[in-house]
């Protein structure tokens, strides 16, 4: 069985990003980059399936510039067997990424594709669902537990107000939520080994996919600022302020 894990290079989650002062985008100069946290969870889940003996090969794939090789190497150090970079200078939107991944999936014929539920840069939460629709695969989004049973998956999903369990016929797409697992750290020997693992490069042209964006970003601006508040000295003062000043309790 083969698992494909698409990953994304994003700003490290600890970085507080700011809009550029001219409103043309987000200031990413000299900012630390990393694998999107949900994608790390996806790699971990795939590697665990392999360690459990039910999966033979884990293939990591990313869409981006040559810089994304760094994140693919990390994926290899975390346990992926080989990597594919779909190299493009274009900032491809979710539908474009889904089409590229579809083309890769048609070459690779994976049984399961595991993706992060959302990337923490655009917060779109789209690619897995789009890919599933394009491929006609079954879909288990926001997974907190995945069990492989012969030719099917049982996925417990985080939904508003609780948990939902679905049964998916393979091939299937899973998108990860926070509680699915706790990703490991790459060990130094594994980082060294990862340097020798195979990494192939493809282009959107080779995959015959048009990646022209369908959405124009007209402006990026800072959110409205909240006016500075005050510190209260006691619970009593707090209750008084809430009752008589803010008037939000009675």
């Amino acid at each position, binding site marked *: 069985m083969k698992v494909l894990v698409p990953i994304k290079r994003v700003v490290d989650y600890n970085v507080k*990003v700011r809009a550029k002062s001219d409103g043309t985008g987000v200031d990413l100069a000299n900012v630390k980059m990393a694998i999107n946290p949900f994608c790390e969870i996806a790699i971990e889940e795939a590697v665990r399936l392999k360690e459990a003996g039910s999966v033979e090969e884990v293939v990591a794939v990313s869409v981006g510039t040559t810089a994304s090789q760094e994140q693919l190497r990390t994926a290899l150090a975390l346990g992926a067997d080989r990597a594919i970079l779909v190299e493009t200078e274009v900032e491809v939107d979710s539908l474009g990424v889904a089409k590229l991944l579809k083309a890769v999936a048609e070459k690779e014929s994976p049984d399961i594709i595991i993706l992060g539920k959302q990337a923490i840069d655009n917060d779109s939460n789209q690619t897995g*669902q789009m890919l599933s629709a394009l491929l006609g695969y079954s*879909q288990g989004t926001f997974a907190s537990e995945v069990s492989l049973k012969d030719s099917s998956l049982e996925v417990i999903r985080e939904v*508003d107000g609780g*948990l939902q369990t679905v049964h998916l016929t393979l091939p299937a797409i899973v998108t990860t939520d926070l509680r699915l697992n706790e990703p490991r750290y790459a060990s130094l020997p594994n980082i060294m080994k990862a340097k020798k693992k195979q990494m192939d490069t493809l282009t959107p042209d080779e995959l015959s996919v048009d990646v022209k964006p369908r959405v124009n970003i*007209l402006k990026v601006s800072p959110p409205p600022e*909240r006016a500075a*508040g005050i510190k209260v000295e006691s*619970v009593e003062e707090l209750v008084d302020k809430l009752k008589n000043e803010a008037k939000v309790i009675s």
Partner: protein
Amino acid sequence: MSILVIAEHDNNDLKEATLNTVTAAMEIGQEVDLLVAGLNCSQVAREAALIQGLNKILLVDSTLYENFLAENIGLLVSDIGKDYSHILAPATSNGKNFMPRVAALLDVAQISDISAIVNSDTFERPIYAGNCIATVQCLDPIKVVTVRTTGFDACLKEGGSVEVENITLEHDASVSKFIKEEIVKSDRPELTAADVVISGGRGMQNGENFNLLNGIADKLGAAIGASRAAVDSGFVPNDMQVGQTGKIVAPDLYIAVGISGAIQHLAGMKDSKVIVAINKDEEAPIFEVADYGLVADLFDALPELEAKL
């Protein structure tokens, strides 16, 4: 301009998030249809018919849509939606589950989680956990959009008598099955609909200490939330999570207890009208967004607060 809104419901009741989404739709244009798809859900359609200003309600009743499996609903909505200029759904876990499929099947982009409408093809949406607001223009003929419900008021659900049209459409992808759902039953209001929310963070130290929030929540009619740190630490279940990857709330009063205020948490609550922070670390970033900050040990402050309310 004709707009299709997908109703959120549980086959019995219409969910509030639908009403915020209808408001967004009516900001875009006048001709708004509402799709109610499910099983034995005609009473949902009757409830929705009270909304004033809707053009009509489309009711699709079939076992295929009982559990809102994304594969089937995606096919249904892309089929019905192909003749509309806009398709809108609330950005709930259900809306997020099927709407990108609709967009992909129609070969158009999806705009996620809009917080404001600039004009019929241009929207504002938060990115980077709300650290930036992007104004985006969709170039595709059909705009597939999910709506951040805190960005729009709920429309009124009274006085209307909208026509309900029954449609029979069977879309069966046959690749997935619903097994079960465990929804936490609670007497408290839903997090996203509550007027008051009180949330605990890592400072609560364990799940049991979340009981300290119960008495206060009871007195204020509040929903109880949590930060990602509290969820990651296993104190409470994930459906209580407020933040970038959890629920987005904007109540009249938000009380953050033992929450440091990571940007991922602020992303989910900073549009609240009044924010109160209780934290023993006076340097905690949560105080930068709080209207009222109390530097105190929560284990002293919470019982006292409960007593004084």
